[in-house]
């Protein structure tokens, strides 16, 4: 197929599908209904490192996890979730909460939506981890 046809078709096709998905309401991010859901999401990534304490953020979008090996975070990846240990993480306050910079090429930056008092508390907790 000539590139002059293939290229516009690919670009338009991708754009149309992305817009359609968004208009259909399929851009909603996952939420963690309760601490049990956060715990399950953590164990899905780290089945051998059970949480001893779970702090669910107020809007249920993420959770701070404490295990015997250290702290970690569960956060939404689109309609799903993922999790990381927070060893070596740097924190920075943002207008909407907290930004975590991780020494991890597969999860370099995590934006957490937190209330101001919550962001301060999480930042304090994470200072001990970094």
């Amino acid at each position, binding site marked *: 197929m000539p590139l002059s046809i293939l290229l516009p078709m*690919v670009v338009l096709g*991708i754009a149309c599908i992305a817009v359609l998905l968004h208009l259909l309401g399929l851009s909603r991010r996952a939420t963690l209904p309760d601490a049990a859901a956060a715990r399950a999401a953590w164990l899905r*990534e780290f089945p051998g490192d059970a949480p001893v304490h779970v702090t669910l953020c107020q809007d249920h979008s993420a959770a701070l996890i404490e295990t015997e090996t250290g702290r970690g975070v569960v956060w939404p990846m689109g309609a799903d979730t993922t999790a990381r240990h927070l060893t070596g993480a740097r924190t920075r306050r943002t207008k909407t909460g907290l930004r975590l910079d991780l020494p991890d090429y597969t999860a370099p930056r995590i934006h957490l939506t937190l209330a101001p008092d919550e962001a301060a508390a999480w930042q304090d907790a994470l200072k001990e981890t970094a």
Partner: protein
Amino acid sequence: MTDMITFPDVVNWAVPLFIAAILAELLWIVIKGRGGRYETRDALTSLIMGAGNVASSILLGFVAYGFFMLLWEITPLDLGTSIGVIVLCFVLDDLRYYWVHRFGHRIRWVWASHVNHHSSQHYNLTTALRQTWTGTFTFMMVVRAPLILLGFHPAMVLFVGGLNLIYQFWIHTEAIGRLPRWFEAVMNTPSHHRVHHGRNPRYLDCNYAGVFIIWDKLFGTFVPEMEEEKVDYGLVHNLGTFNPIRVAFHEWVGIVRDATQPGLTWRERLNYCVMPPGWSHDDSRETSGAIKARHVRQNPDLADTPGLPPLPDQTP
């Protein structure tokens, strides 16, 4: 020897079909409320990966094709282009695909290229298009060498490889359950390939087939989809980014970081490149074999069921 043979570039011609089928699957899911899941950023990443794969084929395709034409110059054999030869080439190329795919899961250097195809936590037709940008650097084109040396023209080999990829597109769906028993017995199907995309310990490293599932049955890597164990899609450690650049290159970055750690022997550095994903010099990580063994230790009742090993003391 016939050098001026042309076959259609079937993958590029199938692009409109891919777009139409994605829209049809999406509408089916939205209308019926079942048959899979879509999410905007996930799908967008998959589609960009697909476009990047086409771009990398255009930019780097000459490497493999040049290699194949060199072999074609060398070989004294020419099987021609009859229908029978094309069918035979398709079947043998599917066997070639099985082994390349198996290497892609068992050799980290090749996994670095293939991993992005497994990096979505969704399983829909866009996942089929989440393809590598770095396939050329795995040097897996050498596995096609025997076909060309046997007398299959390089253009034909690439043509049947394209047909193989097109076949594999439609099996990336949850909208189709099980197909008739005779079909499931011979062909790769949505059910078999869902298993291949699972991150459940049971479903790791199995069902490598492209078109014919018989290769997995022949070489002992077949695991059926179990009613009692729903497939959990994605990687053992799921990505925390939708950035296509990071999706495409993350495992290569991981190899470089691991292999250049201070204090390793040269053998350990090499092993970080060629041993199965999850291998580490200090056993601080888990390979799929170790994950399966741990899962069986934690769930002894599952020992020696499809995809899982026996308990250690039951090993002959």
